[in-house]
């Protein structure tokens, strides 16, 4: 079914707003991701107590929480369309590129909001010393971009397979692990007072490469 939906900036914005509105109606994805992040943080904090001075463990913990919260929720934007049988209608009004970009923007906003709650709580619970804001936030922002870009792209594929949710973690892991490796190493340097320039460059390059791949592949994402 070839469709000629709009791929203008207005279409991207419309898809983005539609995503926000559907999510706001049930808040199902948001609640599960937030609960997941809180449950992980609190159980680690409860089990090991404070981790002051262990930047290796602290940085790994932060990104494992964010990674799994993302895995629990970022495919939802596409799975929702398939399960609610609304994908066909959406494709009539917007091009694949506009759909993918709108959902990427939504997933980015989703991650940022999640981090606004999870990261301060993480500092409180772990008694982590406040790092220099620039490198820490830079790694966090670029890591989230790379995470959202890769997860959105894989989520679009996974929504069209059998056993969507179960497969998402396994199939997106190879694509997300480079992000995890670079982000953990960068956060660790930021916590130790370094500038983490190399990791930020790596994350930015990876995010840009994933977005470029998404732009090239968008037309193939949905066909029948």
């Amino acid at each position, binding site marked *: 079914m070839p469709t000629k939906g709009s791929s203008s900036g207005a279409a991207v914005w419309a898809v983005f707003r539609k995503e926000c509105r559907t999510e706001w109606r049930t808040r199902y994805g948001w609640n599960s991701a937030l609960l997941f992040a809180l449950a992980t943080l609190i159980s680690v904090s409860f089990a090991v107590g404070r981790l002051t001075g262990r930047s290796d463990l602290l940085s790994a913990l932060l990104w494992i929480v964010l990674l799994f919260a993302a895995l629990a929720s970022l495919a939802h934007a596409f799975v929702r369309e398939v399960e609610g049988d609304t994908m066909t209608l959406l494709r009539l009004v917007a091009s694949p590129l506009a759909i993918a970009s709108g959902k990427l923007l939504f997933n980015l906003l989703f991650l940022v909001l999640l981090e606004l709650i999870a990261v301060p709580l993480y500092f409180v619970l772990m008694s982590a010393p406040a790092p220099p804001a620039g490198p820490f936030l830079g790694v966090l922002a670029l890591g989230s971009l790379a995470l959202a870009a890769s997860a959105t792209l894989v989520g679009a594929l996974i929504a069209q397979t059998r056993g969507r949710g179960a497969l998402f973690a396994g199939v997106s892991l190879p694509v997300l692990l480079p992000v995890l490796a670079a982000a953990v190493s960068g956060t660790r340097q930021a916590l130790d007072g370094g500038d983490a320039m190399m990791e930020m460059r790596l994350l930015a*390059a990876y995010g840009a490469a994933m977005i470029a791949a998404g732009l090239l592949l968008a037309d*193939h994402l949905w066909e029948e």
Partner: protein
Amino acid sequence: MLSRGLLFVWIAAWLVAAFTWAPLVPVLGETTRVLYFHIPAAWVTVVALGWSMVHSVLFLVRRRMEHDDHAAAAAELGLLFCVVATISGSLWAKAMWGAYWNWDPRETSIFFLLLIYFAYLALRSAVDEPQRRARLSAIYSVIAFVTVPFLIFVVPRLYFSLHPDPIINPRGKVDMDPRIRIAFFALLVGFTVVFFWLLSLRLRLARIERRRLEASAAR
């Protein structure tokens, strides 16, 4: 038939030569021999991944199922050789570094490659309709391909590794004893030919299976 026999004789003869005729590298000692299995297997892993990804792109462009057969068959064989490269490398690491696994950047990269292969094949198994399976797995292949340069070239260059680099070293030079070099390249060629031979078998099987499906659908 004859060429297959020649291939077997070629590999057997060069393996014997690698163990008896080629000398040992001073520091590596007897572990030098892993060179003749490990590097050809790792090389075939990369060739198979490249082959699979090129055919995935060709499928997206031309939409012919033969390209999907190539992509799937190469990925299956690539996984096989990747396991061989991982296990032989791990045994060598135990002998030289004292541990089977310690997340050296090279070990990390090959672990990612294993994951990519597994995920690709898992994705294929989750889609029933052949056209859709071909399209989705081809897209995944391209996404995975984006990570490969980061894993193979960027990460091991940025982080310190203990892995010896006789082939893709920064200077781009091969500095090996001539006898080791001859045996090594002979086996590299041998492994590559084995890969393409197995690939041709797998492709014939895929063709037969599809013809049988079409025949049973027509009946």
